[in-house]
């Protein structure tokens, strides 16, 4: 059997294995956790910005930042449950 075909079949069997999916799941969860932490920091950041320079659309940014953080947290729960 040619070397190229053997390597390709090895890669394909690894990708379709449970180990690969566990690694992907762990990676996705890790990214989502980092995103959620960042989303929480953004809430504080927007609050500081809106307090320093007040405009009539500042509350929209604050609301958006809060919804973003809630969405990020919900995604972690969903990803942990569904994947």
């Amino acid at each position, binding site marked *: 059997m040619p070397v190229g075909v053997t390597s*390709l079949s090895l*890669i*394909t069997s690894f*990708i*379709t294995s449970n180990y690969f*999916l566990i690694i*992907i*799941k762990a990676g*996705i969860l890790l*990214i*989502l956790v980092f*995103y959620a932490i*960042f*989303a929480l*920091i*953004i809430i*504080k*950041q*927007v609050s*500081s*910005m809106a*307090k*320093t*320079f*007040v*405009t*009539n*659309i500042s509350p929209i*940014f604050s609301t*958006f*930042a809060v919804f*973003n953080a809630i969405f*990020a947290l919900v*995604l972690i729960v969903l*990803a942990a449950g*569904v*994947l």
Partner: protein
Amino acid sequence: MFHSYIENPESCRFEGQNPDEKILLLLRAHPITNIPWIFFSIVFFLVPFLAPRLAHFFGFSLSLIPNTYLIALLIIDYLVVLIIAFEGFLYWYFNVTLITAQKIIDIDFEPVLYKGVDLAPLSKIEETDSKTAGIFGTFFNFGNVAVQTAGATVAIEMRNVPRPAHVADIILDQAGIPHQHVGGP
């Protein structure tokens, strides 16, 4: 509210503003400076469309990965787009310089959670220096304005603001410093 050069702006104020203090000029970086984050947002937005072709190019098929995982990766990609665009816009929108009849206020935000507010009373201003450089700066007429105050080097620096020479002129006018006006004697 989304302009970068606003004279006598309505419905905005800053922390520590006196009741009788009126904002005469609001400055932000020129909108063209937003191109980098807009570009990266578009690149990440296009990733899901290009991923199957790239995978195919490397002899790999995305159909081997379960759909739920692909959807999760798709959501992560759009979260990245969202965060790049939101952060980019926030930093552009809130990094402002305000000129009132009493002082100049330079508000700087930098990632992550850095806030700097520089104040310079107009009575302390000695000179201003405006610079326009580069192809974009010359073409779109934006650049930096440095304000020097008594007893300090450069107290305030406004970056990439529109019409820098005109801004420097307005500051000197407000400070009551005799000077040659832009575009005439």
